[in-house]
C-alpha cells in the first residue's frame, strides 16, 4: 500500500469518525479484510464512495455502515470492477433514498450469491422501481431488497424481475396489498418449486385484469396450489392464467376448486381433467370452464371418469350450439346436464325415485308414508345418527340419498326397493304397534311375570351394571334419581318392555334381530316377486358380516343369530362351549319366520335369548373353539315343547339373577371381589353388532314414542287448553328418563358427565319440538324463518306437503332449470270482516249494477239446438222436409229433432294478486315511475328498504294499491257467487327462489264462507314478486279443474322481480321471460291467462311478456274494481 493511499484512508477514516461509531468500526473491519484483496486504486474508490454515501444526507451514514459491513463478503464474490460498480449502484440508491441503500447493502451478500454479477444493476433497478418517493413505497422497496436472498432461492432472476413488476402493478392500488403479496410469495415460491415462475406469470395476469383478486388468489394458492400434485401444477397454473384473463372469473375460486377437482381424481386422469377444462376455455367460455372445475367432483360422485368425459363432450356440443347454455350445463343446473348424467350413471338418486317409492310404500302399508333422505332425520337430532342407513320412525321412511352399489341402474333401484320394503314392512307388519299386554302367539308370556317378580328393582340396577365394568367407584351420576318415577311404568310399551332388561343394549339388539327377521320373512312371503332381489341383498349383507371367530363369545352368538336371520344355513359355526345356546337361539329365529309370528313373539323371544346370552361370558375365544353347528333340525323340533316349559322358570331365574351385580348378590365383599377378578380376566364389555346395511337402523322405542305422540295428540283435543308440556302424555322427566336409559340413543357415555347431559338436553329439546310438530293442532301458521339458499345452489326438494317445486325458465340457456323454485302454499290467516262489509257498503251502487249485468249472463246459457238426430221433440221445418222426402220416395234427412241444450256455463278462474312490497304505495304516489328499480340486491338492505317504504306508506292514510286490489276482490266475490263459477283467489309474494309464498284466500274448490272475508282483510304488501312459480302453481290448481273454460287473472302493479330473479346483466329480461314461459305453460294446459296491471310504465315489458296474450294497463288505479269485473264478464262470456 502506498503512502498516499494510506493517507487517504486515514482521511476517510477521520471523516467517518464524525458519524456514529458503527460507521468507523465497520470501515476498519472492512478495510482490513479488503486490503490485499483489492488493488489500491480500487480500494481508494471504495473508501471514497463509502464516504460520499455516508455524507450524502443526514441519515445516509446508516447506508455507509451497511456498505462497509457488507463489503468484505460481497467483494469475495465479485471481480474488482463489478465490486466498485456495486458500490456505485448503492450510491445511486442512496441519492434516491438512504433507506433503499441500507436495504440494498444489507441484502447484497445473500443476493449476490445467487445473482450473476451483471444482473446486480437490474436487480437494484427492479426494486427501486417500487419506490415512488413516499414512505410506504420505500418500505415496500426495502422489503423486496430484503426478501431477495430468500426469493432467489426459488426464483431465477428473470422471475424475480417479473415478480417485482407484479408488485409494482399492485402497488399502484395498494402498498399494503403488495407487501402482503410479497410476504406470501416468499412463503409460497419455495413450495411451488419450478412452478413459481408460472405462478408469477399468473399473478401478473390477475393484477392486470382485476387487482381485487390478487389477495384471495395468494391465499388460495397457499393452501390449494401447494397441495396440488406436482406433475399437474404447471399446466394447471397456465389454465388458471388463461381463465383469469376473462372478466367474471375469480381466480382464487378456480384455484381452490381446481385443486380439489384434480386432487380428487386418480392420478391417471389428472392431465385429462386439465385438458378438458382447457378445451372449454378454448371455446371461449371461461365461466363454463370454471364451473366445470367446481362441479367436477360432485359429478364424479355419480359417474366414473370416462363417463365424466362423455358428459363433458355433450357440454362441448352445447357450448358450440349456444354458448350461454354451457354455463348452467357445466354447473349441472340444466336439465340437459341432469339427463345426460342420468343416462350415464348407474347410481340411483333418491330425489328421482322418491315419488315412486312414496306411492309404492303407501300402497304396501295402506297409510300415508313420507319418504325422505336419512340425513334429514339425522339433522333433526332426535336420536338418529346414521345418515347413510335406511330407517323409519313409523310414518316416514328415511333412505340414503343415493344408491351406487351396483353397476346397473336396475339393481341399484332394486336395492332401494328392498330397503324401502323392509322399512315399510316394519310399519305394515306392526313393529310399532307393540303392546305390553297383548299375548304372543307362540310363547308362554313372560312379560307380566317379570314385572311381577321384579317390578321396582328393575330400573335402578341396570345403570349400575352398565357402569360396573369400567370403574369400581361408587360415583354414579344418574343412578339415584330414578327411584321417584319407578311407581308408574313408562307409557311407551316399548320402553316398558326394555325396562325389563338388565342389559338394555343386548335386549335392544336381540329384539332388533328377531323383529327384523320376522319382518323380512313376512315381506318375503307377501311379496314373492321381490324374493330374488331380497335374497341377493341378504347374500350381499352376509358377505360383509364380520368374522365370528374374532368376536368374544356373547357377541359371536349375536352375530350367529344375525347370520341365521340373513338366511345362512350352511357352514354355520358357533362357539363349542355354547352349542346348546346356539341351537336354542337358532330355533327362536326360525320361529320368527313362521306365519303366525307377531311383534309380541319377537319380544318374548328376546326375553329368552337375553336370559341365555347373559349367562354366556363375553370372553375371547380362539379359532379352534368354534365348531360347525349340525343342521339336524328334527332333534330341535322334538324337544321344543318340553324345552319351552322346563326352561321358563330358569329364564325368570336368570333374569332375576342378572339384576344383581355379580354372582353372589353383592352382599359378600369377598365373593364380589372374586367375581371382579373373573370379570377382569375374561368378561368383556358387550358391544352391539355391526348393522345389517339393508335393514338399517331400527329404533322401536323412539318410533313408538313419536307415533304415539302423534296419535294421542290427535284424539287428545280436550287436553289442548292445558299447558303445552302437559299435553304430551309423557312428562318431561319421563321422557328424559327414557332417553337416558334407551339403548337406541347412543350417546358417548363416560368421561364428561356434563357434556353428555348437554348433548342429551339438546336432543330432548329437539324431540319435544318434533313431537309438537306432529301435533296437527299445534301447527299454527307461521311465516317461518327466512332461509337463504345461495343462488348458485342446486335443485330444491320439498320437505313438507305444502311445498311445491317448479322449474324455472332460463331464456339464455333456452331451457328449464329443473326444480328451481319452491312454492310454499299457506292459508291466509284471518282478520276481521270490517273491510269486507265497508267495501260492500261503499260500493253498493256499483255492486248492484254489476250484479244485474252478471245476471243477464245467465239466460244465455240455454240454447235451442236444431236439426239433431235425436232430441226432445220433432223440429217442425226439417220434419216437413222429411215427410215430403218420404212422400216423394227419397231418403229423408234423419236430423229432424231439436233439443233445448244447456250450454252449461262451466268456468273456473284463479285470481293471482300481487302482494309485493310495492303495492304498499299510496295511489297518488304510484305515479312516481319505476320506484322499485332502486331495490338493493343485498338481502339485509332489501329488508330495510322495504320496511322504510312500508312505513312510508302507512304514515299517509291514502289508499294503497293493495287496498284497491282488495276492494276489487270483494266485489268480484259477490259477482262470482251470482254466476256460480268456480273461482279461487290467491296472493303471492316471497323472497328468493326458495321462498315463494303463495297465500290461499279462497281455494278453487272451497265454498264461500265467513272465513273468506276475514282472509281478505289480511291481504297486505309483503316482499318481492316472483311471478313464474306462482303462475305455475295456480296453473297446477286450475289444471285439476274439469271446467270447460279456465282463466288465470294476474293482477299486478309492476314488473316481476325478486332476488336472483333478475340475473346478472340481462336482469329484467330473465324474470320477464320466465313469467312469459309460465303463461305459455298455462296456455298449453288450456287456460286463458290475462294480465291486468296498474303500472303505467307496463307497456314496455308487457309487450314482451304478454305477447299473444291479453293484457290491460289501467291508467287509473282506482278504476281497478270496476274494470276487473267488466273484463271478467267480457272474457268469460
Amino acid at each position: 500500500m502506498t503512502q498516499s493511499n494510506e493517507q487517504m484512508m486515514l482521511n476517510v477514516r477521520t471523516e467517518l469518525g464524525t458519524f456514529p461509531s458503527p460507521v468507523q468500526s465497520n470501515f476498519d473491519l472492512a478495510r482490513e479484510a479488503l486490503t490485499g484483496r483489492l488493488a489500491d486504486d480500487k480500494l481508494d474508490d471504495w473508501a471514497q464512495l463509502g464516504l460520499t454515501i455516508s455524507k450524502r444526507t443526514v441519515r445516509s451514514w446508516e447506508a455507509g455502515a451497511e456498505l462497509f459491513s457488507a463489503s468484505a463478503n460481497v467483494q469475495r464474490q465479485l471481480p474488482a470492477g463489478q465490486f466498485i460498480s456495486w458500490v456505485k449502484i448503492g450510491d445511486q440508491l442512496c441519492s434516491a433514498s438512504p433507506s433503499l441503500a441500507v436495504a440494498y447493502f444489507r441484502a447484497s451478500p445473500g443476493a449476490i450469491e445467487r445473482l450473476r454479477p451483471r444482473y446486480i444493476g437490474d436487480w437494484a433497478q427492479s426494486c427501486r422501481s417500487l419506490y415512488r418517493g413516499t414512505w410506504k413505497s420505500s418500505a415496500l422497496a426495502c422489503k423486496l431488497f430484503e426478501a431477495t436472498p430468500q426469493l432467489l432461492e426459488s426464483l431465477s432472476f428473470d422471475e424475480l424481475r417479473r415478480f417485482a413488476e407484479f408488485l409494482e402493478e399492485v402497488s399502484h392500488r395498494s402498498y399494503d396489498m403488495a407487501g402482503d403479496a410479497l410476504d406470501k410469495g416468499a412463503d409460497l415460491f419455495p413450495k411451488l418449486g419450478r412452478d413459481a415462475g408460472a405462478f408469477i406469470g399468473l399473478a401478473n395476469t390477475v393484477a392486470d385484469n382485476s387487482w381485487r383478486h390478487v389477495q384471495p388468489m395468494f391465499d388460495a394458492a397457499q393452501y390449494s396450489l401447494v397441495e396440488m400434485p406436482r406433475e399437474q401444477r404447471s399446466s394447471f397454473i397456465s389454465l388458471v392464467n388463461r381463465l383469469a384473463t376473462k372478466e367474471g372469473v375469480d381466480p382464487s375460486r378456480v384455484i381452490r376448486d381446481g385443486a380439489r377437482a384434480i386432487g380428487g381424481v386418480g392420478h391417471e386422469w389428472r392431465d385429462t381433467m386439465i385438458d378438458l377444462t382447457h378445451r372449454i376455455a378454448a371455446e371461449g367460455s371461461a365461466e363454463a370452464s370454471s364451473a366445470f372445475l367446481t362441479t367436477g367432483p360432485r359429478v364424479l360422485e355419480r359417474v366414473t371418469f370416462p363417463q365424466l368425459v362423455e358428459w363433458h363432450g355433450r357440454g362441448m356440443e352445447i357450448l358450440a350450439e349456444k354458448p350461454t347454455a354451457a354455463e348452467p350445463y357445466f354447473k349441472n343446473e340444466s336439465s340437459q346436464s341432469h339427463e345426460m348424467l342420468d343416462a350415464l350413471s348407474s347410481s340411483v338418486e333418491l330425489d328421482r325415485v322418491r315419488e315412486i317409492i312414496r306411492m309404492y310404500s303407501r300402497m304396501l302399508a295402506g297409510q300415508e308414508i313420507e319418504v325422505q333422505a336419512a340425513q334429514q332425520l339425522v339433522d333433526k337430532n332426535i336420536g338418529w345418527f346414521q345418515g347413510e342407513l335406511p330407517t323409519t320412525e313409523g310414518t316416514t321412511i328415511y333412505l340414503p340419498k343415493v344408491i351406487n352399489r351396483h353397476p346397473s341402474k336396475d339393481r341399484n333401484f332394486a336395492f332401494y326397493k328392498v330397503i324401502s320394503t323392509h322399512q315399510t314392512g316394519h310399519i305394515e307388519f306392526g313393529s310399532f304397534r307393540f303392546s305390553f299386554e297383548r299375548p304372543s302367539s307362540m310363547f308362554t308370556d313372560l312379560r307380566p311375570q317379570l314385572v311381577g317378580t321384579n317390578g321396582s328393582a328393575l330400573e335402578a340396577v341396570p345403570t349400575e351394571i352398565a357402569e360396573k365394568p369400567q370403574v369400581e367407584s361408587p360415583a354414579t351420576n344418574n343412578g339415584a334419581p330414578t327411584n321417584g318415577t319407578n311407581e308408574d311404568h313408562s307409557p311407551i310399551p316399548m320402553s316398558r318392555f326394555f325396562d325389563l332388561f338388565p342389559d338394555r343394549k343386548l335386549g335392544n339388539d336381540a329384539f332388533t334381530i328377531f323383529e327384523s327377521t320376522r319382518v323380512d320373512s313376512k315381506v318375503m312371503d307377501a311379496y314373492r316377486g321381490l324374493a330374488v332381489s331380497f335374497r341377493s341383498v341378504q347374500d350381499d349383507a352376509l358377505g360383509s358380516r364380520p368374522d365370528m371367530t374374532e368376536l368374544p363369545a356373547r357377541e359371536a352368538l349375536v352375530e350367529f343369530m344375525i347370520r341365521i336371520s340373513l338366511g345362512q344355513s350352511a357352514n354355520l359355526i358357533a362357539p363349542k362351549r355354547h352349542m346348546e345356546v346356539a341351537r336354542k337361539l337358532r330355533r327362536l329365529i326360525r320361529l320368527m319366520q313362521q306365519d303366525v309370528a307377531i311383534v309380541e313373539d319377537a319380544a318374548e323371544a328376546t326375553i329368552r335369548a337375553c336370559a341365555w346370552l347373559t349367562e354366556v361370558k363375553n370372553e375371547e375365544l380362539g379359532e379352534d373353539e368354534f365348531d360347525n353347528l349340525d343342521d339336524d333340525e328334527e332333534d330341535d323340533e322334538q324337544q321344543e315343547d318340553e324345552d319351552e316349559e322346563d326352561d321358563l322358570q330358569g329364564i325368570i331365574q336368570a333374569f332375576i339373577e342378572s339384576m344383581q351385580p355379580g354372582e353372589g348378590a353383592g352382599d359378600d365383599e369377598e365373593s364380589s371381589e372374586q367375581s371382579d377378578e373373573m370379570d377382569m380376566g375374561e368378561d368383556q364389555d358387550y358391544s352391539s353388532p355391526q348393522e345389517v346395511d339393508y335393514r338399517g337402523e331400527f329404533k322401536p322405542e323412539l318410533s313408538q314414542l313419536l307415533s304415539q305422540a302423534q296419535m294421542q295428540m290427535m284424539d287428545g283435543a280436550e287436553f289442548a287448553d292445558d299447558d303445552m308440556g302437559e299435553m304430551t302424555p309423557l312428562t318431561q322427566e319421563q321422557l328424559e328418563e327414557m332417553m337416558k336409559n334407551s339403548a337406541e340413543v347412543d350417546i358417548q357415555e363416560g368421561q364428561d358427565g356434563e357434556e353428555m347431559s348437554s348433548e342429551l338436553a339438546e336432543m330432548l329439546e329437539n324431540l319435544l319440538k318434533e313431537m309438537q310438530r306432529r301435533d296437527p293442532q299445534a301447527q299454527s301458521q307461521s311465516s317461518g324463518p327466512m332461509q337463504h339458499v345461495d343462488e348458485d345452489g342446486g335443485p330444491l326438494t320439498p320437505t313438507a306437503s305444502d311445498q311445491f317445486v317448479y322449474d324455472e325458465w332460463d331464456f339464455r340457456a333456452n331451457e328449464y332449470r329443473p326444480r328451481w323454485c319452491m312454492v310454499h302454499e299457506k292459508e291466509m290467516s284471518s282478520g276481521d270482516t270490517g273491510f269486507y262489509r265497508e267495501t260492500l257498503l261503499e260500493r253498493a251502487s256499483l255492486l248492484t249494477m254489476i250484479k244485474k249485468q252478471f245476471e243477464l249472463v245467465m239466460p244465455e246459457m240455454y240454447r235451442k239446438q236444431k236439426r239433431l238426430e235425436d232430441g226432445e221433440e220433432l223440429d217442425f221445418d226439417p220434419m216437413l222436409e222429411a215427410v215430403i222426402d218420404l212422400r216423394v220416395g227419397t231418403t229423408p234427412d234423419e236430423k229432424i229433432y231439436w233439443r233445448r241444450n244447456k250450454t252449461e256455463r262451466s268456468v273456473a278462474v284463479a285470481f293471482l294478486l300481487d302482494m309485493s312490497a310495492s303495492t304498499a304505495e299510496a295511489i297518488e304516489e304510484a305515479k312516481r315511475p319505476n320506484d322499485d328499480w332502486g331495490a338493493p340486491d343485498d338481502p339485509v338492505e332489501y329488508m330495510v328498504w322495504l320496511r322504510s317504504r312500508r312505513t312510508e306508506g302507512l304514515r299517509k292514510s291514502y289508499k294503497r294499491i293493495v287496498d284497491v286490489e282488495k276492494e276489487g276482490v270483494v266485489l268480484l266475490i259477490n259477482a262470482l257467487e251470482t254466476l256460480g263459477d268456480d273461482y279461487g283467489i290467491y296472493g303471492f309474494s316471497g323472497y328468493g327462489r326458495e321462498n315463494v309464498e303463495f297465500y290461499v284466500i279462497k281455494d278453487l274448490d272451497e265454498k264461500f264462507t265467513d272465513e273468506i272475508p276475514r282472509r281478505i282483510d289480511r291481504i297486505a304488501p309483503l316482499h318481492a314478486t316472483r311471478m313464474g312459480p306462482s303462475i305455475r302453481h295456480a296453473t297446477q290448481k286450475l289444471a285439476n279443474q274439469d271446467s270447460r273454460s279456465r282463466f288465470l287473472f294476474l293482477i299486478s302493479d309492476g314488473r316481476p322481480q325478486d332476488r336472483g330473479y333478475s340475473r346478472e346483466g340481462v336482469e329484467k329480461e330473465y324474470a320477464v321471460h320466465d313469467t312469459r314461459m309460465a303463461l305459455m305453460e298455462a296456455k298449453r294446459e288450456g287456460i286463458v291467462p290475462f294480465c291486468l296491471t296498474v303500472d303505467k310504465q307496463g307497456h314496455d315489458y308487457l309487450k314482451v311478456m304478454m305477447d299473444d296474450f291479453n293484457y290491460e294497463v289501467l291508467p287509473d288505479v282506482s278504476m281497478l274494481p270496476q274494470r276487473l269485473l267488466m273484463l271478467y264478464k267480457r272474457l268469460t262470456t
Partner: protein
Amino acid sequence: MATEQIYNQTIIEEYVITDEPYYLPLADEIEIFEAAYHQRVPVLLKGPTGTGKTRFVEHMSWRLGEELTVAKPSTKADASSNGHPESLPLVTVACHEDLTASDLIGRYLLDRDGTRWQDGPLTRAVKSGGICYLDEVVEARKDTTVIIHPLTDHRRTLTIDKLGLVIDAADGFLLVVSYNPGYQNAVKDLKHSTRQRFVALEFDFPDEEHEAQIISHESGCEGENAALLAALGGKIRNLREHGLEEGASTRVLIYAAKLINEGINPRRACQVAVTWGITDDAQVQRSIDEVVSSIFP
C-alpha cells in the same frame, strides 16, 4: 228364425235373466233388496266402479224372478200353463249427460204416414212391471231426474206430457239407480229431493279373500294367482285419493286374471289390464308396476 239365431234379439220387456248371475254377497244386501222389493221401495246403489253394482241388480232380477216362477204358478194357473216362467224383466239405461226426458219416456218417430209414438225404456219398464235400472244416474241432466219422482213415491205413476197420459206402474215395477260418489263434484251430485226417495246400499271392494274368490270364479283362474291379484287390488286401493282417483276395480283384476289364464305373464297382464288402465301418470304407473313386480314372482 235365422235372424233370431244370429242376433238373439229380445224385446225390452222380455229381457229376462234366466241363468243365475254369479254374485257373492258381502253383507246383508240381498235380504235388504228383497225386502225393499217386496215393499216396492226404490233402491239406490252407491259405490265405486267395478264393485258389482250392475251385477248385483242382474242377480236380484234373476233371484226375484225365480221367486215369482216358483211362487206364482200355484196361484196363477194360466201363467204356468202358458209355458213361460214368470219372470222379472230388467231394463238397464246407462245415463249420460245428454240424456233427456224423452230419451227415457219416449218420443214421436216419423213414419210413412206421419208420426208414431215410441215408448222409451222407462215407460216400457213401467208398463211391463220390471226393474228399471238407471246406471250412473248423476250423469243425467238434472231436469231428467225429476221425471222419476212420481215413480218413486206412493204414487207410482209416470206422466207422459206429450201424450197427455198418466200411467200407473205395473205391480212388479221397481226403480233402481246407481251412482258413484267417487267423482266428488259439486256439479254432479244428486239433489236431495231425489236421493231421499231411495233406500241406499253402499258397495265397496270386497276383502281380499272374497275378492280372490270372485276373481277365481269369474276368470276361471286357479287359486294362487287369484289370491295375488286380490292382494294387488288391495294395495293399489291404498293409493286412492293419493295419486289415483279410483282404485283398481274388481273388474280389471278379473281381466288380468283372464289374460293370465290365456298364458300371458302375470306381471305383463297386470300392467296392461290394471296399471295402464287406471292411470296415465307415469310415476303412478311406475310405482304400481313396482308393487306388481313385488307381488308376482
